[in-house]
């Protein structure tokens, strides 16, 4: 088996008495969608924050393409190819859709930022940004202010910005939350395509989507991973069913 693109080993993180991550070990291989599921407050977002570098783990290591990035800043990790979408849309709200996508393309370029030349006339940046917007279906909205977009469109823009980064790994925190049936139906085939560009660590509450998309699923409960397996095995795992008691993890979810 080849070396995983992302490997997280023994991550532990406490907030006071609360163990948000407890000895979490997880990996992500090329071409796969690895879904991370678990009840609210299980520590999924906290784990993403640690992988992205926004939060420092108490112990454990994070390796990206074999390199230990645990001590690196968010900026350094982004430059190494870790792209992230936020659970709560995190965009430049006063700027246009195109400008937000161009910001991503600018970051991906990793060069000196020009002080005088017109950025809007930079055709290279524009094309990268446009391609990403088209990919997520926001092409027509390029000139809109982000503040004027619907919730679902902001989620799509989050994905587009991540795409402009030419990511090696995509970390997606509930990209379909609040999208509605139609939005989810658009997002699912898109992620299906994207995983060949970069493997995706996907946090998602929509179990239909998860079972449609995931190649592997890890279940996080109270900061601990209680199971990692193929979707079919996860569905029938008694520990998982117990943890999800009352949650919709029924046979209908295919």
């Amino acid at each position, binding site marked *: 088996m080849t070396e995983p693109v992302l490997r997280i080993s023994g991550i532990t993180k406490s907030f006071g008495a609360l163990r948000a991550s407890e000895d979490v070990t997880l990996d992500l291989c090329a071409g796969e969608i690895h879904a991370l599921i678990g009840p609210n407050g299980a520590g999924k977002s906290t784990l993403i924050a640690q992988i992205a570098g926004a939060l420092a783990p108490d112990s454990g290591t994070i390796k990206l393409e074999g390199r230990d990035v645990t001590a690196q800043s*968010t900026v350094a990790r982004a430059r190494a190819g870790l*792209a992230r979408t936020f659970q709560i849309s995190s965009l430049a709200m006063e700027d246009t859709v195109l*400008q937000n996508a161009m910001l991503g393309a600018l970051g991906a370029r*990793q060069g000196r930022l020009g002080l005088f030349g017109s950025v809007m006339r930079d055709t290279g940046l524009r094309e990268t940004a446009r391609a990403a917007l088209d990919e997520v279906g926001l092409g027509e909205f390029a000139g809109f202010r982000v503040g004027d977009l619907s919730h679902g469109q902001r989620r799509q823009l989050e994905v587009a910005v991540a795409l402009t980064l030419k990511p090696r790994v995509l970390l997606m925190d509930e990209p379909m939350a609040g999208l509605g049936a139609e939005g989810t139906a658009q997002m699912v085939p898109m992620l299906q395509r994207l995983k060949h560009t970069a493997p995706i660590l996907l946090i998602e509450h929509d179990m239909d989507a998860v079972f449609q998309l995931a190649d592997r699923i890890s279940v996080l409960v109270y900061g601990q991973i209680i199971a990692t397996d193929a979707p079919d095995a996860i569905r029938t795992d008694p520990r998982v069913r117990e943890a999800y008691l009352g949650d919709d993890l029924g046979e209908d979810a295919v």
Partner: protein
Amino acid sequence: MRREAIFNTALWLGLLAYPVWAWLGDEPYQITLATRVAILALAGVGLNIALGLGGLVSLGHAMFFGIGGYAAGILASHAQSYTPLYDGAFTIEGTQNMLVIWLVAVVAAGLVALVTGALSLRTSGVYFIMITLAFGQMFYYFTISWPAYGGEDGLSIYVRNWFPGLNTLDPLTFFLICFSILSLALLLSWRIAGSAFGLALNAARQNEDRVRAVGIEPYRLRLVAFVISGAITGLAGALYADLNRFVSPTMFSWQLSGEIMVFVILGGVARLFGPVAGAALFILLEEVLGGVSDYWHIWLGVLLLIVVLFARGGLIGLIAGQGTGQATGQRKRAGGADD
């Protein structure tokens, strides 16, 4: 956006025409007023790069203004007394050449901005305001207690510094010098706002996590903006010294920092011509209200309150409409929806 461009052009032409008109009518005081507007506007253009584009609420910009002023005052005083500024392994003479003075003012203010910015930009919000204020006050008290250059009494520049080939003693010529520099600074500010750097800086003002997530470090953007901002305000200080032929520690006072910020807000934060509109309004109010009452600052305060509460885009916003229009001018609005 078109309206803003038209208004800006009118403002620019008006500021140019007013002293020419005063010159025709032989009213030198009015030329001096216009020159003050141009110089204060220049200081405001500097601040606006930090405040408007970068969202950095600096209450220490008088520090740069004062450094520029003292660069002019100190160099001129040595030239006037024929004593070298430094006489050791090599000699540095004073000078009354504006070009040299401006260079020294810009470099000195830029360096101080680099050091103070590197420290204060590690904080944010109210701490940033307090630290920039504290740095400004340090310079203020330092100049007061520095007898070599006049201490509290300040320094006089007996004859206005010279510019190659021009008669700077002529008020209109001096105005035109200041106006040209203001115009160049506006051009620079416009280019920066529309540049890749400007896009990232403006995004960092709105959402720094987003900027980090694309692999750009906001701290570095802000430091560069702070240095450019300080350098421009420093240049304004050097011109101000030449306008008054006098520099004193009040150039470093936090009240002055506050005044610059006040008129930038009055004119319109993050609007290209906001500092110009604000400086013109400020001087106008000072002249009109200042003649009526010594307490005209109270009315200024009331006006500021109204602007902050009801007219976020300042004067430019009232006239040209909302929308931070500095960066591109190619934004479209979704069908009537607003935020």
